[in-house]
């Protein structure tokens, strides 16, 4: 126990930003994000992530948002296990045909008002896989997309900027 405490104390709170540009940007985006989430979502934006054929690269970067350096929960963003708890879906992958119905059902289970973010080149335009016998391609071909975040995969800060852009987009009710 002592070793754990010692390590924790020595490590300190890494979330506080050292003054380099990347983290200054994180703070700026995060603060704006928090302001909007406080105003529009009573302090809590719940996101359900759906992998619709991703190579798992995007998932790694979305995961990174929860590590202590980004710690997006402090801005009010949290990832939930069920679409029924979600305000938004964050969809990755070129919509593999085998995931198509699962994606549509997940969307159907998300209560309105809701919005959808397509993250990563595959979800934005089909990416390396494109449209083929096994993939539909861009998520927008099967569901209405509010905001697209390009990148292969998008960096965590780009994901955050995309979520912010989604909150700034005109309110859609679907």
């Amino acid at each position, binding site marked *: 126990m002592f*070793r*754990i405490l010692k*390590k*924790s104390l020595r*490590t300190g709170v*890494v979330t506080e930003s050292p003054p380099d540009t990347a983290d200054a940007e994180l703070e700026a985006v995060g603060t704006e994000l928090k302001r909007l989430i406080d105003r529009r979502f009573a302090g809590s934006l719940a996101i359900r*992530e*759906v*992998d*619709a*054929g*991703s*190579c*798992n*690269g*995007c*998932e*790694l*970067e*979305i*995961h*990174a948002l*929860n*590590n*202590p*350096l*980004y710690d997006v929960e402090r801005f009010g963003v949290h*990832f939930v*296990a*069920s*679409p029924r708890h979600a305000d938004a879906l964050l969809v990755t*992958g*070129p919509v*593999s*045909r*085998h*995931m*198509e*119905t*699962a994606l*549509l*059902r*997940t969307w159907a289970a998300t209560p309105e008002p809701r919005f959808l973010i397509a993250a990563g080149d595959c979800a934005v335009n089909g*990416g*390396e*896989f*494109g449209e*083929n*016998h*096994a*993939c539909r391609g861009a998520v927008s071909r*099967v569901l209405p997309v509010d905001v697209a975040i390009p990148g*292969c*995969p998008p*960096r965590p800060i780009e994901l955050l900027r995309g979520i912010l852009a989604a909150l700034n987009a005109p309110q859609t009710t679907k």
Partner: protein
Amino acid sequence: MNRFDWLSEYLAQLQDELIVVRRGSARYLPPAHMLEIDAEDWTRAHELAAANGYRWAGLWADRDDESARVLSLLENAGDYLVLLAELDAGNPAIASISAHYPAADRPQRHLRDQHGIALSGEADSRRWVRHRAWPADQHPLTPDFPAGGFPEPSPTPADSDYPFQPIAGNAVYQIPVGPVHAGIIEPGHFRFHAVGEEILKLEQRLGYVHKGVEKIAVGRDAVGLARLAGRLSGDTTVAHAWAACQALERATGTRPPRRAQQLRGLLCERERVANHLGDIGAICNDVGFAFPQYQCSRLRELWQRHSDKLFGHRLMMDCVVPGGVAVDLDDTGITTLRHDHACIRDEIDILFDVIEDHPSLEDRLLTTGRLSAASARELGCTGHVGKASGQAFDLRAANPYAPYASHPITTRVLDDGDVMARVQIRMREIHDSLDWMDALIDHLAGDGLRASLNEPGEARIGIGFVEGWRGEIVSYVRLDAAGRVARFFARDPSWHHWPALERIVMNNIVPDFPVCNKSVNASYSGHDL
């Protein structure tokens, strides 16, 4: 012992069994030795191989307008043997080998779904990679499959009537999980049969992230293939791209510069460290111990930021290219790396010490999710799954390729086969990789970064073998005379680890499934192709 010393004995056995070897050559698909046998001897040849203890390492087909052949990969003492059989192109059929190599079950079904190759003998008659995106009598890798596939019906219906194997009994109940899981993870379906808390049986249904990789690879140039291979499984982008490039280079007789090989090794070991760090933290988190999760995810993030700074990408995608690498390392970079390695070593010394002897972790990880050595052997498990269950094979040591031939790396093996053993293998591998990288960067050659691929001139095949962080990766390429890809198949170690997970969780409790699963961390995308 010399390479392929054991092969003469196997050839003698084949002869005793009156199995005709039509062609035997070490030159056709180096470094593997290839034996062409008749399709009717397929099962018997594998039965002999299994009795000799050869590890079975993959199955794929290569089919064009005129011919259909099926290739099966075996490994013994670090040497690879490819058995090849020509099939009747009009009506291709092959006998099942899953009685001797149970991990071949799904690859065989994949073969049937994709190529329309019929299976005889003891074979599971159910579909595997095919759900409902194309009809049962159509096969995407056959020449007459329509280019656009079968877009109707739209949306593609769910594969809801897949016949899971039932377990009968009064108190037995089923838990269906997925394809959309409760976390930020890849999709797949798990069907549990349980009594109370105890798992009687787990059956997996995968294929949800099938992206038609084998088909869309056809017609690409070498650079395009490397990009695609780097996206088979995003967590293994370096190792898959490397294996594909190795196959391309062997097919065209191209030799990358030494420095490029060294940098490939460096990138691949960085990928190993990143993934192991992430998984070690996640495993601890799955049993409610959040401290290592925060520490490990912090270290992983810093590690990836350095990758970004040094190589322009947090996951190091597209750094490995045909003929060499697309990145370089200058003196400042070397200094950064050395400092980085020293820092992380200091951190993990403390951290791994806590993980190694923390009573609540011991309670949850020791004896949980055991994979016996016999099962690991039978299923052909490699990487941390094999090495935690007594299977010493690690390609970097068993048959070292560049740069491991001139820069040997320490490899590990443990016998316990439980979640803790898989964690321990990963912790040690991080240390070994750090030591290896430190030694490597002192001896970087100065001979360039990239050789241009030779023109094949005629149709050529090549095979690549790389030890990724999950284990052995195999990549097979056939090029046409113009150097375009005519066939690509990549075998991720997950083909062997998924069936292992089904055995690992047996008689464990349902709440321990996540930690068992994470300790294996098989790839969905790398498997579904």
